[in-house]
């Protein structure tokens, strides 16, 4: 059975970007928010350290300094006008959250307090600057709660635990709606809409060690990729330096912002060698590579010599308890380590996709080297690529991205819906989803999804992680081919229609493969090292050949076709990245 709904706008995903867009859209046009989770379960809630804006509450600061750091941190692959726009709108976005009740920590005179974060500096790199607004170490939690509260206040219509599985397009190439699977009943729902905004978050679950939730499987990216939309800059995936050893749970950069340091097995503060000016507060790609180098050269800590230590023993007790309570608890609960007395073993963890669905500054999905908008299609947040993060996102800029571009996307989408008419639905709109699910449910023998997923995660961790090579990436491509074949025979035990989470996990695995394939293809093609994409066989940044965004298209046979589009420069001349 299929149920049909008609709305002006559909927002897919209810994390920070989706909720912020919903607040904008729901006031203006008939809007439905479809989320596979209850909104407050979204991964925005796990962001810890802060959200940057040049308020200048604690130290002199300007949006332009913030923009420079964002561009430099992104190793000059950032579209500069968009970065400047984000940093300028940051100030208003933060005040808006405060007006909606976000409990920011305060300065003694009652203003929003600010602290240091990696890569954020005063006057173009002179010294670290206090720019990150924060609510203890649960800033993301408070943003998610605050935005959800505003949605409750506005009585926004939510469809919770509905999995969007397909994008519908009209014959003339306009967005026509989406198809969703209702977890509680197994029923399909067709949502007819003039515009759809994807805010489905990241795809970190393709890696074995990740800070990402189990549900971060790149759904929106894969859905559009299957419909011919390119994926931009997929080779740039951020590996956060301080994940809980083996588990990958994030230990916020705020730990280092508050004065925590990294030590190798010899007790050396090794970041002094790699980034003499900002040391432990270098951007994440540099710190992760430094850790990798320490481990490679035999100075790794722990029984397997594959970790380094995070040291906060010298921090005042009240800083640990008041400003880093959650991080401290993670160390206690998951490692059995008492950070006030003991060292915390950490290793880099797959954290954030800089790449994703290409959009402009209004959240419109754009394709091709000319960045042509697709009518009615929008994306915002981690699943999107504006690109304001370039080759490496600065800490705190993801929370900023979701509020700034969630708002801009929602606003533009509302305007679009007021003008546009409702495109006709294709015939049997739920057909391809129905066929896919029926085939999985009908299969009695085949491959176990968990086995395939584990293989994907382990190999991606080995071959497409912090350090990459031509040989490794080619091997990964071959492995992906094999995984794809096994996935075509994936089988589920649960044949029921009630909360069939096994079936949805199998579908999500397909989405992960759709994210891994363009990532590996684009990484293999990019014969340079830039930001988070480090090629051991091409250790230099190569602006002459590679100062450009990649666009990966899925071919009918499943292979990846790459093309490129220019980076928008014009404000800062690309320079060598030193900290």
């Amino acid at each position, binding site marked *: 059975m299929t149920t049909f709904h008609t709305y002006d706008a559909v927002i897919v995903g209810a994390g920070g970007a989706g909720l912020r867009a919903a607040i904008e859209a729901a006031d203006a046009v008939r809007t439905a928010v479809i989320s596979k989770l209850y909104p407050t*379960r979204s991964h925005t*809630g796990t962001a810890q350290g802060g959200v940057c804006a040049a308020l200048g509450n604690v130290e002199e600061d300007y949006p332009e300094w913030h923009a420079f750091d964002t561009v430099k941190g992104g190793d000059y692959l950032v579209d500069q006008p968009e970065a400047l726009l984000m940093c300028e709108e940051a100030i208003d976005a933060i005040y808006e959250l405060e007006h909606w009740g976000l409990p920011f920590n305060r300065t003694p*005179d009652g203003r929003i307090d600010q602290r240091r974060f990696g890569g954020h500096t005063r006057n173009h790199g002179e010294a670290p600057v206090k720019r990150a607004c924060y609510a203890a170490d649960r800033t993301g939690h408070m943003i998610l709660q605050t935005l959800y509260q505003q949605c*409750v206040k506005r009585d926004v219509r939510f469809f919770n635990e509905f999995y969007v599985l397909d994008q519908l397009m009209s014959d003339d190439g306009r967005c026509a709606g989406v198809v969703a699977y209702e977890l509680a009943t197994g029923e399909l729902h067709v949502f007819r809409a003039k515009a759809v905004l994807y805010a489905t978050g990241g795809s970190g679950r393709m890696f074995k060690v990740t800070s990402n939730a189990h549900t971060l499987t790149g759904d929106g990216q894969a859905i559009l990729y299957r419909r011919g939309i390119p994926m931009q800059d997929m080779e740039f995936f951020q590996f956060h330096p301080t994940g809980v050893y083996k588990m990958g749970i994030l230990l916020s950069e705020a730990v280092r912002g508050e004065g925590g340091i990294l*030590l190798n097995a010899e*007790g*050396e503060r090794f970041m002094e060698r790699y980034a003499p000016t900002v040391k432990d507060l270098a951007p994440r790609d540099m710190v992760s590579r430094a850790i990798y180098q320490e481990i490679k050269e035999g100075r790794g800590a722990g029984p397997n010599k594959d970790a380094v230590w995070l040291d906060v023993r010298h921090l005042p007790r009240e800083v640990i308890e008041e400003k880093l309570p*959650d991080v401290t608890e993670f160390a206690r609960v998951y490692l059995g380590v008492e950070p006030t007395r003991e*060292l915390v073993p950490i290793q880099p963890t797959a954290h954030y996709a800089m790449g994703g669905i290409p959009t402009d500054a209004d959240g419109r999905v754009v394709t091709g080297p000319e960045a042509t908008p697709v009518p009615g299609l929008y994306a915002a947040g981690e699943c999107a690529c504006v690109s304001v993060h370039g080759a490496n996102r600065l800490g705190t800029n993801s929370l900023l991205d979701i509020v700034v571009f969630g708002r801009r996307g929602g606003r533009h989408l509302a305007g679009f819906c007021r003008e546009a008419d409702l495109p006709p639905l294709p015939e049997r709109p739920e057909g391809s989803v129905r066929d896919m699910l029926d085939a999985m449910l009908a299969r009695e023998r085949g491959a176990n999804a968990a086995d395939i997923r584990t293989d994907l995660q382990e190999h991606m961790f080995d071959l497409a992680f912090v350090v990459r090579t031509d040989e490794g990436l080619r091997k990964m491509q071959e492995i992906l081919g094999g995984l794809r074949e096994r996935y075509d025979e994936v089988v589920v035990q649960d044949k029921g229609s009630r909360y069939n989470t096994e079936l949805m996990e199998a579908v999500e695995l397909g989405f992960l493969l759709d994210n891994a394939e363009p990532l590996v293809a684009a990484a293999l093609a990019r014969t340079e090292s830039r930001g988070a994409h480090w090629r051991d066989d091409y250790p230099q940044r190569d602006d002459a050949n590679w100062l450009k965004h990649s666009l990966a298209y899925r071919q009918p046979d499943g292979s990846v076709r790459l093309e490129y589009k220019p980076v928008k420069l014009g404000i800062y001349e690309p320079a060598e990245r030193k900290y």
Partner: protein
Amino acid sequence: MATDVGDVLETSEQRRAGATGKISLTLRIRRYNPEVRGEESWWDEFTIQADPNDRLLDALHQVKWYHDGTLALRRSCAHGICGSDAVMVNGRNRLACKVLVREIAPKVTVEPIRGLPVLKDLIVDMEPFFAGYRSVLPYLINDEGEPDGERLQSPEERHRYDDTTKCILCACCTTSCPIFWGDEGYVGPAAIVQAHRFIFDSRDRGARERLQILADKTGVFRCRTTFNCTDACPRGIEVTRAIQEVKREILFDRF
């Protein structure tokens, strides 16, 4: 600059020493699936090998992924922030991702949280819980007009409601409350925690309205101070204390 890490390294490694060998864990799980067995629930037992430092959630995944794919549970972040995986572990409400195997081996009982309709296995209907949440006007109310910059709030004023901002709406507290089990009308501890977060926020002007809602027969005076909620909170919120503070506001007729 080198720091002496010898002794610290030793203790940190000792803590992890148990992590090398896997141990046996038997999970006794209460099942329910009307598609398969009608309205009767039943027990299933699975014995698996797990790392002592694995989470109970990892163990449940192992069961689901390699033994019985039909096992239904909610989860997302897997480190105690998203609030999806509240279950009853040996009779106590916990987040499955914040319980380690070494705390519960060799045998553990896992059931759905109590007081909300079970839909399948460990999945319950959260709608009554969220209805209680929505009933207390869980958003900042202030019609005085917005300044160009931030509203000022001193660190002390900010600290006043800090504890209750930690709530992740997991329902561990509400579904451990005997009053909630017995009285469907009671809004429950989590909704009061959410109300507290605004009532004591110096920027909010909706306290009177919320206190009127909570003074009602479905509100705070249902609470019999059994402290189950405080014990159950995976975020360490002093839930009972928050409820008492709201009661006091009503009793002293401050609104």
